[in-house]
Structure formats: C-alpha cells, structure tokens
C-alpha cells in the first residue's frame, strides 16, 4: 500500500515534469495521460473507486482525445524551437515556484497529522456516490447539467463561426 503510493506518486511527478519540459505538444499530451493514470491509481488507494473510474474515462479518455485531436488538426509549426529573449521570465517563474514550494513545505511540516478515519465497505462506491448526488447535492448536480449544455452550445458556436 505504502510502496504503491510512492511508486505512483513519483511516476505522476516525473511525467508532469516531462510534460512541462517537452517541446513537442503530442509528447506533452502523452505524458499528461501517464500523470492522469497514476493519479487514478492514487485515487484507488484512497478508496475513491468511482472517482478513479471517472478520472480514467473522462480525463484520460475524452479530454485527452480532444487535446490530441486539436493538436493534430492545427498541425503546429515548431515555434518554441526558436530561441527568444524570455530567459528573464523563465528565471522569475522558477524562482516564484521554488519559493512557493518552500512555503508549502514549511506549512506542511507544522500541520498536525489527522488520524485515518475508519470507513465501511460502501465508502467510495458508485451507489454511495449516487445517494449523495441525488439527495444532498441534487441542486448543484442539475446546475452542472445546465453548465454542460452551455459548454456544448458554446463549443459548437465558437468552432463553427469564422472570426472576421
């Protein structure tokens, strides 16, 4: 259990770093798929079975296919291969990120440990999730369906019309 956390955690961090460092968008997308997969494995370790399956289906399946489809559709030239005077921005960004990570480390080392709560067999299953979604969170659930409808209409309108 403990070893699996470190295996998948380091896999997620390594592929996330590779995604940021890769020049080729397709390679970056493939690395993001690996990150999504290892995060889904971590979700299983946290007994979040339903969310793990949704993660694989929606993220690693639908969203990444959409990304790769757009990358191949646009057939981008390698703009990023040309060197340009952005070293200053890179340095500042890396410094900001390192500073924020140091702050986070300080904060986490002072956070008291929460003991693991005991959970029953039904925790994280689709049935429990459905009970919650259709009782306590029914209104947000319906709002999200309207949001998705708006996103469908918006995506069709944006991709169809010529911007002149």
């Amino acid at each position, binding site marked *: 259990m403990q070893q699996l956390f470190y295996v998948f*955690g380091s896999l*997620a*961090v390594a592929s*996330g*770093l590779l*995604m*940021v460092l890769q020049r080729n*968008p397709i390679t*970056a*997308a493939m690395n*993001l798929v690996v990150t999504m997969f290892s*995060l889904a494995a*971590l*979700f299983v370790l*946290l007994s*979040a079975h*339903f*969310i793990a399956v*949704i*993660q694989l289906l*929606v*993220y690693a399946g*639908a*969203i990444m296919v959409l*990304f790769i489809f*757009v*990358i191949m*559709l*646009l057939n*981008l030239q390698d*703009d*990023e291969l040309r060197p340009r005077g*952005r070293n200053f921005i*890179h340095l500042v*960004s890396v410094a*900001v*990120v390192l500073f924020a*990570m140091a702050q*986070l480390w300080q904060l*986490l080392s002072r*956070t008291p440990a*929460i003991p*693991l*709560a005991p959970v029953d067999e039904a925790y*994280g299953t689709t049935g*429990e*999730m459905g009970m*919650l*979604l259709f009782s*306590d969170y029914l209104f*947000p659930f319906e709002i*999200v369906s309207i*949001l998705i409808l708006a996103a469908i209409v*918006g*995506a*069709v309108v*944006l*991709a169809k*019309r010529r*911007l002149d």
Partner: protein
Amino acid sequence: MPPLNHYLALSGVLFFIGVAGVLTRRNAIIVFMCIELMLNAVNLTFLAYARFLGSMTGHVFAFFVITVAAAEAAVGLAIIVAIFRNKETVNIDELNLMRW
C-alpha cells in the same frame, strides 16, 4: 497508508509543476494541459481529506471539478481553434489583442 501530509505534499508539487508550465510555456495548448494538471492536483487534495476524515463530500466536489474541467476543455479548445483560424498561431506571445 501514508500519512495525510504526504498526499498534500504530492498534490502541492503537482500543482506547482502546473503553475510553472503556465508561466513559462508559449504554446496555448500546453498551457491548457498545465491547467488540467493543476485541477487534478486539487482533486487529489479533496480525495485525501475525504478519506482521512471518513466523509464522502470531497468525492462530490471532485466529481464536479472533473465535470467543469471537461466543459472548460471543450470551450477552451474551441477558442484555440477559432484563434488559430484567425491568426494562424497559438503562440501566446503573439496574441496580445487584449493586453493593456
């Protein structure tokens, strides 16, 4: 089971990898992927707290985050396609129409 702090640290590291990508990369599609990575890191925090507190409310929030991320990806990629049709580039350095 690893302690909660390890999950939070992993989530923070993934989030800041995403932040670094958004700040340094010039390809709009890769910036988009980094935003997805940040959303995923937040989901890991939600689920870790949900497991350690023994409550399933965090699962509902993670579910909504995934849904909103899917909607955002569809609209955002449509915007990128529209911009590419118009300007023949997705390099965010050359898209300065709304810069002050």
